[in-house]
């Protein structure tokens, strides 16, 4: 009996967004099917993996991931170049962690200098992230946006408390913008609407529905992503037809499972591979639920996810 595949086609389509400059440009989104469903419709853009670097040495990262970058993490530009040239990063995510009032309170001017140095040194797209301090981020990201003017970089994250300033800065400097809300499809939709009502082009917007780590809320991010993607495709909701970001590394590398030594918890097995698996499983689950852009830390985890993505293309 020949089998008739129950294919599903949708009227909605995700905006295709190019980030970065020249040869380094990366295209996100553009698909009109659920993640990796190229067997039933167009899925042009492949998800991209950005490596996370920080403007200050990663003192708060656990040893297993900090060690990998020991020789380069003293300077953010050296660190980024290593990720680009030796690790094959599709993009660099520069987290301006040192601007946080509790992490050194680095000034907006100095943060902007780091951004300029970074842009001069790398070819792949740059994603500029604040320290997730809503108030400080407004001043830091405004200056950072000026430093990245017309480089087609990505800046974020615009949140409910500060979106006006950050979206205006992204608009004035012709940058792509990440809009983040907390694990709720309606909040994501509302923030996207507020930002586009300011005149911001929806085709320059990336939605971060808020990430999480395996065993620490993964199912919330997973399902919010699936719901956002279904709303965008099946209900053809233009306010949700944005590529999605999963900012994985920062959630994964603070949980106990990526830090507790095997000697303390023998039933958890070897720490090195456990930590890598934690990041890779979290990231690949979000790919399956709809992420177009991942921010990751460990090169082994990113490498495993790349292999997984390549296999997902084999149909």
């Amino acid at each position, binding site marked *: *009996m*020949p*089998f008739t*595949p*129950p294919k*599903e086609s949708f009227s909605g389509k995700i905006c295709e967004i190019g980030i970065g400059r020249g040869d380094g440009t990366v295209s996100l989104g553009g698909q009109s099917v659920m993640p*990796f*469903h*190229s*067997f039933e419709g167009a899925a042009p853009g492949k998800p991209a993996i950005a490596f996370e670097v920080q403007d200050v040495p990663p003192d*708060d990262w656990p040893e297993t991931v900090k060690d990998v970058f020991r020789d380069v993490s003293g300077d953010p530009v050296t660190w980024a170049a290593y990720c680009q040239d030796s690790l094959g990063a599709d993009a660099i995510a520069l987290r301006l962690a040192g601007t946080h*009032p*509790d992490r050194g309170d680095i000034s907006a001017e100095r943060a902007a200098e780091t951004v300029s140095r970074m842009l001069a040194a790398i070819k792949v797209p740059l994603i500029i992230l604040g320290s*997730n301090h809503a108030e400080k981020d407004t001043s830091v990201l405004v200056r950072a946006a000026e430093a990245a003017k017309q480089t087609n970089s990505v800046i974020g994250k615009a949140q409910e408390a500060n979106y006006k300033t950050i979206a205006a800065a992204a608009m004035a400097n012709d940058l792509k913008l990440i809009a983040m809300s907390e*694990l709720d499809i309606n909040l994501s939709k509302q923030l996207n609407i507020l930002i586009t009502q300011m005149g911001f082009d929806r085709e320059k917007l990336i939605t971060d529905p808020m990430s*999480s780590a*395996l*065993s*620490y*809320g*993964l*199912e*919330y991010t*997973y*399902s919010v992503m*699936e*719901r956002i993607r*279904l709303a965008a495709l099946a209900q053809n909701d233009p306010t949700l037809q944005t590529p999605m970001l999963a900012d994985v590394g920062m959630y994964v590398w*603070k*949980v*106990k*499972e990526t830090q507790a030594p095997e000697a303390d918890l*023998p*039933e*958890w*097995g*070897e*720490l090195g*591979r*456990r930590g*890598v*698996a*934690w990041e*890779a*499983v979290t990231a*690949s*689950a979000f790919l*399956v*639920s709809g992420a177009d852009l991942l921010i990751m830390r460990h090169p*082994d985890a990113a490498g*495993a*996810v790349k*292999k*997984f993505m390549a*296999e*997902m*293309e*084999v*149909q």
Partner: protein
Amino acid sequence: MALTGVEIFKLLPKTNCKKCGQPTCLAFAMKLAQRQTSLDKCPDVSEEAKEKLGAASAPPIRPITLGTGAKCVKMGEEMVLFRHEKKFVNPCAFAVEIKDTLATADAERKMEEAAASEIDRVGQKLRVDALYLSNDSGDPARFLELARLASTKAPDLPVILGTVNPDAAEGALGTLAGKKAVLYGANAGNISAMAEKAKAAKATLGIAAKNMDELCELTEKAKSLGVEDMVLDSGARSAGEILRDNTYMRRAALKKNFKPLGFPVITFANRADGMLETLVAGLGVEKYASIVVMNEAERWKNLALFSLRQNIYTDPQVPMQVQQKIYKIGEPGPKAPFLITTNFSLTFFIVSGEIENSKVACRLAVMDSEGLSVLTAWAAGKFTAGKIAQFIGESGIEGELEQRELVIPGYVAILSGAIEDKLPGWKITVGPREANGLPAFLKARG
């Protein structure tokens, strides 16, 4: 397609005899339509009605049990494609492959590893669920030897027998009588013989097809040979093929009520690269496998996959809760800060994570608020001054503290006076509104 209550009612005896436990035949019909009762409760139903209703009322994906006893695994019965619609029902089984070409000592090690894999994770006991014994040698004698080894080394673990040789199948099934094993390997060349062996041993038949067309042919053939319990393999091996075929199978069963594919799915994630195997197994968890077969079950991998399965199979309508108690973060001394929050699991994870980030050892009281977050619990009257005072008062924690001071979430600052009234001798301090304010707050306290 499923029948409506009224359509079912027309087929019932309409005697309102109440023997089914319902007041009327119509009420019984409504319950049947909602799958809240079963047709065998009606003693007078006609054969014709049984046939019609049986076909219509069967769950779209047949329920099948793998193994017997305390460690048996239920499969099938899934009702949705996406977990936000409704809870995924039966968590998939992880099976580790053991080949009959392995040295006995290696096979033993893998069996013992699987048998000892159980860990306690957020109150659930999780383990490698099954052994997949593979007749790689093609030799029935070696396969039998491996099956015997499994029945002594891991006697209560369910078994999947992987062979295309009906004679090897018969021998190995003999050692697993009454154990509800899966006999996997029925293909176009051997299906009649394999169906016979599975039926004789009351085992589930695993269909090993090359593609979806052949899979449908083989399940129909097996059904015509009298096989009722099957698990399906479309031949998909790459991650992309697994996603495609498992999606097609789930959709066809649920949306088209397509019977030839209304069975649990077995997915082979086996990869030499252990990390990649973990990710492909994860895809199986997310996308519709009932059994996921892997080469190795190392502890780091088990922890990640057990956790993923737990996440994916939680009920999206019931907030995940953590147990009410006073948690120690780090090694808090008598002067360490003492904080309180609610027992919504995300609230707990975020608050405890930020306390860990602060590197300040603390005690964290987690109060049962029926899984609601702080503001919602306060609004719903589950996180009130009276309840907080009662919980803290009865906890006996004051004996461990040098100073009776409790830090409450900034969102419920309004409660501080009322708690102080109800907990005489305690000082109530208002903490930050958001958890990410905790590191600064705790560090500032010195």
